[in-house]
């Protein structure tokens, strides 16, 4: 029943996106193509990041145990490009704030889901061997959906010029957390 298991993981990963799309009212706005455009922007941004990382950061040869703080910090800073990409998508979409956020976040996270989780699921979950990590991966994609929605919302809030001053600091801190999340986890 391994194809069945793949179906399970697929459902666990994709259906929340589908539900979110349906229920947030985006379908009423015919936003399908806009989401796809957001996804294309995601691809482009990832490509630029990869090229940048490959060109400017040589592989660090050193002891296996020591964590190269500075190098990894620099690499995490490149993830700022993610924020820029989100901002770009949102600025290109005219419309209400919620709509922009949702479109950008949906397109972005769907593209990430397709690119980074589809192939491992296909190859791994269909095999005879069972591993909990596929369920984990699918669940992880749900969490990253929420994460990207939050990130897009924070970016949008950051760019609003009519934001009260008191909100500036928390917003900036949240933005910083978003970018350096992976770095801080280490």
């Amino acid at each position, binding site marked *: *029943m391994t194809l069945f*298991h793949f179906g399970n993981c697929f*459902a666990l990963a994709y259906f929340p996106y589908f539900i979110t799309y349906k*229920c947030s*009212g985006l379908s009423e706005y015919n936003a399908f193509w806009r989401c796809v455009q957001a996804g294309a922007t995601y691809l482009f941004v990832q490509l630029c990041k990869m090229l940048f990382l490959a060109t400017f950061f040589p592989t660090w040869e050193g002891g296996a145990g020591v964590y190269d703080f500075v190098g990894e910090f620099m690499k995490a800073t490149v993830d700022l490009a993610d924020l820029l990409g989100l901002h770009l998508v949102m600025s290109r979409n005219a419309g209400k704030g919620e709509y922009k956020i949702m479109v950008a976040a949906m397109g972005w996270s769907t593209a990430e889901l397709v690119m980074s989780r589809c192939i491992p699921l296909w190859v791994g979950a269909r095999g005879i*061997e*069972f591993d909990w990590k596929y369920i984990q991966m699918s669940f992880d994609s749900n969490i990253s959906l929420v994460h990207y929605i939050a990130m897009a919302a924070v970016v949008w809030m950051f760019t609003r010029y009519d934001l009260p001053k008191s909100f500036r600091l928390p917003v900036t801190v949240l933005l910083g957390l978003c970018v350096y999340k992976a770095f801080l986890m280490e």
Partner: protein
Amino acid sequence: MFEEASEVFDNMFKSSFPLTFIVFIPAVLILVSPLPAEAAHEFTVYRMQQYDLQGQPYGTRNAILNTEARTVEAEVLSRRCVIMRLVDFSYERYQKALRQSAGAVVIILPKNMSTMPQDIVQQFMELEPEMLATETIVPVYFALEDDELLSIYTQTLTSSSSQGSSSAAEVLIHTATANGFQMVTSGAQSKAVSDWAITSLEGRLAGTGGEDLPTIVLVAHYDSFGVAPWLSYGADSNGSGVSMLLELARLFSRLYTYKRTHAGYNLLFFVSGGGKFNYQGTKRWLEDNLDHTDSSLLQDNVAFVLCLDTLGNGDSLHLHVSKPPKEGTAQYALLKELETVASNQYPEVKFSMVHKKINLADDTLAWEHERFGIRRLPAFTLSHLNSHREVQRSSIMDVRPHVDLRKLSRNTKLIAESLARVIYNLTEKGAPGDLQIFTEQMQMQEEQLSSVVDWLTAQPRAAQLVDKDSSVVSTLEYHLGRYLKDVRRHYVKADKRDPEFVFYDQLKQTMNAYRVKPAIFDLLLAFCIAAYLGVIYLSIQVCIDTTSLAHLVPWKFWKHIRFHWF
């Protein structure tokens, strides 16, 4: 969303055919592509023997398996792979597995056999011929234990023994948490090997003093036997015999180099293959030498043939004969010399003669000398074993620690002294019983004996594994060539129409153990995921309802004027 998506697909269908082809064919190909899978554990397994001897099949007939693993305690064993450890192995359990039509049996052996207690080793040795005697269609494999295999075994054990347990809730929890294992072998089905050549080697030392000298033949078979060919190292049987033969060859070739000690006997040394399969090598060699050639050392004056079989341990020596030697023959002389040397120089050795008639109605012959006896050549076999039915002769437990080097070298010296006394006729010339010939420069070289035994037991020497290009044969040939003249190979191939022996392949496989979950688990998971999705849907609906209530008016406003924006 679906309307737009369906629009896209419609366009694709309506447009040119190649476009749809390009999109769909890769999708279909990916869908049906075979999966390279990673296993929880990959390990080498060795299959039980499979051979036909004189038309009679022995051993397991099957090689492939793709079944779920269970241990013997489980209730349902049919079409499952039964895993057993050597410590828990018993014939009843094995029979139980076979009776319930198990799919396969895998027996886990400890890495180091010598850590096993003696009674378990002995019990297993006695079970080996019984396992082989019954022809099983079920593949039986042996694996050497390591940590991962042991953990797989313990997990299977806990899940198997709790199978009969009670309530549905427990079963559900059990399916979610337990790990089943699927055992898969990667090879093909076993088939008969055609044209397998069993190699034997012969070499000689010619005597001095005219034509028509009497010949003494020394024989030892070099192959080994056990319940699994790749695990049969045959230390005592017959690695000890071969190393003794090489040492005797060295000693006598030294004696024969000097004119003063060059005796009037031809010495013919024969290292035979296929010995455990009813002495095929010897049989064909005899046929070739006696029937198909005009002149051979074996046809003329043969004094006697001495076969060496299992001499690496024990404090007794038995001379097995099929006919008690008559007085005045060289055979009788050797018997007497052996008694003399044993009683005078090695009192701890109990020497005796064992008389057993050749029984042609048996499936296999008992000792190697019987082959010569059938052709009316005077022959006997020396062994520390009392009977040919001893299980030590054909066991995988016969590894290097079974050979006691001191006893092997003592036996070698004993035999060398007796042979020398016969060849040089020392008793008639009045030499005392405790005269030692092989001393000082002619000393037995224990290190040589030890290194030959070590080398022989370093690899499995089953007859199915040693072909004519094997390193065992070529190294033996080289060693014989250092001491003897006219070293020749002799090949035996099974007859095409009525083969005496048939070997099968696929004796060593790689088995993969995949972690699997039972089928109920997938259904359970689907149910849980459906419940989870339902909860998310409901919660989003609730959120949207509560927020949309606040923006009720602007929402509707936006709906009306949206076509102005897009």
